[in-house]
């Protein structure tokens, strides 16, 4: 996911920005080693390696900005009143796209190969560059062309702001590496630096949406295997496994068993949470009430499609393990938070299952039996159908309940913050060591 790869890239670049005396760090002559620890040829080779890593980062910057350019709108009011001419051709972002492309094309360094990206270097400077390039290569997976179809403008602005900060870091580092033998400077670094600065400022005028960190590839959630964890952790383990097993659609019967387990779990965990986090306790009490309502409304729904036997078994594990938790147990806040996170996901999944089930008629309405009325002379017709599709899915009581009460609201989802790595990279761009620090940071024998 972009949150991880982007953070890795920024962290490595911030660490590089805090390093001065690069020639010495690559084995050049210093006060302690007048002849240097590495020959000029060796330093030149390390420099070329760094340029390959840098080219990988530039390529990611360029491609990502091109991807998001279509939905990144400048805050500068356009002079042209012609609405038929796309506005994205102008503005700092468009200029940065051109500057990055210019820089990429005019560099003689090729992209870092898989071998270079995956082989750790003994030199700490080169290793930081390798990590940054590796993150950039992985980030391509997260910020590929498909992303543009899903991103919102505030998310695209956050991404463009990140690219701008990284481009500025590359310009600063380019000047600092000039003493490396054979070092090739960025083409037109002034233009790149200023357009990156302008883009960063332009993007920060609006409120960027850092939920973009959630975009991209993420590993599949796997069940926690092995023996049950002791105490409350065993319950959390089973609840997590239930979430994983809910990937397959359960039958109506299994869904009712799972709903019952969630009602009991929330209700039983409520007193434990009340001692540590009363806010969470009240949420869980409300959750138990909601599941009780869902349970009532599901009684008149049936259907045989689906499976969910393993999910129902995990739901039984939840309740079985809950019995082994001693009444006076104090549950740590991070475990409670873990439960809340899994609850939000389970609730979302169950809401999806019910809504989709009713809409696509995998969950059907049970038929009410005809009444026997003695006063009429008519015969009671045998039932031809046991189930009928719900007439108006959106009006079904259970669908309204899951929409209004079960599905976690956007307010409950934690607001995305810029994170430490963004602030750290911005701080590192203007970092200058004091005399004492510079002395201490100097290479030692």
């Amino acid at each position: 996911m972009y949150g991880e790869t982007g953070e890795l890239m920024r962290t490595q670049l911030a660490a590089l920005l805090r390093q001065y005396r690069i020639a010495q760090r690559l084995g050049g002559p210093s006060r302690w080693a007048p002849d240097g620890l590495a020959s000029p040829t060796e330093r030149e080779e390390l420099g070329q390696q760094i340029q390959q890593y840098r080219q990988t980062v530039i390529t990611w910057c360029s491609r990502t900005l091109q991807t998001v350019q279509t939905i990144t709108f400048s805050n500068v009011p356009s002079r042209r009143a012609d609405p038929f001419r796309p506005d994205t051709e102008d503005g700092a972002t468009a200029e940065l796209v051109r500057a990055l492309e210019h820089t990429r094309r005019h560099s003689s360094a090729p992209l870092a190969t898989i071998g270079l990206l995956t082989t750790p270097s003994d030199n700490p400077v080169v290793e930081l560059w390798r990590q940054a390039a590796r993150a950039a290569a992985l980030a391509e997976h997260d910020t590929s062309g498909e992303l543009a179809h899903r991103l919102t403008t505030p998310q695209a602005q956050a991404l463009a702001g990140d690219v701008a900060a990284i481009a500025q870091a590359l310009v600063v580092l380019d000047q600092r590496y000039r003493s490396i033998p054979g070092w090739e400077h960025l083409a037109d670094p002034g233009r790149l630096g200023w357009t990156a600065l302008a883009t960063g400022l332009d993007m920060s005028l609006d409120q960027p949406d850092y939920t973009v960190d959630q975009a991209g590839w993420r590993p599949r959630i796997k069940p926690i295997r092995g023996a049950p964890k002791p105490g409350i952790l065993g319950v959390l383990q089973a609840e997590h496994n239930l979430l994983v097993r809910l990937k397959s659609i359960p039958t109506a019967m299994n869904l009712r068993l799972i709903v019952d387990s969630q009602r009991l779990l929330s209700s039983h965990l409520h007193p434990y949470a009340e001692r540590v986090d009363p806010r969470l306790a009240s949420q869980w009490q409300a959750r138990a009430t909601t599941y009780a309502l869902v349970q009532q409304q599901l009684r008149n729904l049936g259907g045989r499609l689906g499976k969910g036997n393993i999910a129902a078994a995990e739901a039984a594990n939840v309740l079985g393990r809950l019995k082994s938790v001693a009444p006076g147990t104090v549950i740590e806040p991070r475990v409670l938070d873990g439960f809340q996170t899994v609850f939000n996901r389970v609730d979302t999944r169950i809401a999806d299952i019910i809504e989709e089930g009713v809409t696509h008629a995998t969950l059907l309405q049970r038929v009410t039996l005809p009444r026997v009325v003695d006063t009429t002379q008519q015969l009671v017709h045998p039932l031809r159908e046991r189930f009928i599709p719900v007439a108006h899915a959106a009006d079904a009581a259970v669908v309204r309940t899951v929409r209004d009460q079960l599905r976690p609201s956007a307010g409950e989802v934690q607001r995305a913050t810029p994170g430490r790595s963004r602030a750290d990279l911005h701080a590192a761009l203007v970092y200058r060591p004091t005399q004492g620090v510079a002395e201490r940071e100097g290479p030692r024998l």
Partner: protein
Amino acid sequence: MELPHLRTLAQARSHLAPLADGAQSVEASSAYERALLDLDRIHGDESPALDADGLTEDRAALYAGALTAIEELTNYGIDALDVELVLAKLEDARALDRS
């Protein structure tokens, strides 16, 4: 299933549902619900809808009605052991509800 069988099953379900909804504790409510789920499982989840019309609010009467309807299911070819297991669950739920 013939109509009399369906009617008995609907009666059993319709008596169990208010018992679950009005139980004293979550555990008792869940226990009644499990008895109802067992009834549905025995019938391959082909049960008819609940019919609350004309039902009393007296829990003793509801319990007696559920008990009678479940016992009657043996007359329609339902395995006696399955019926006994549902009755045992119903008895457990009642015990939980009273405690």
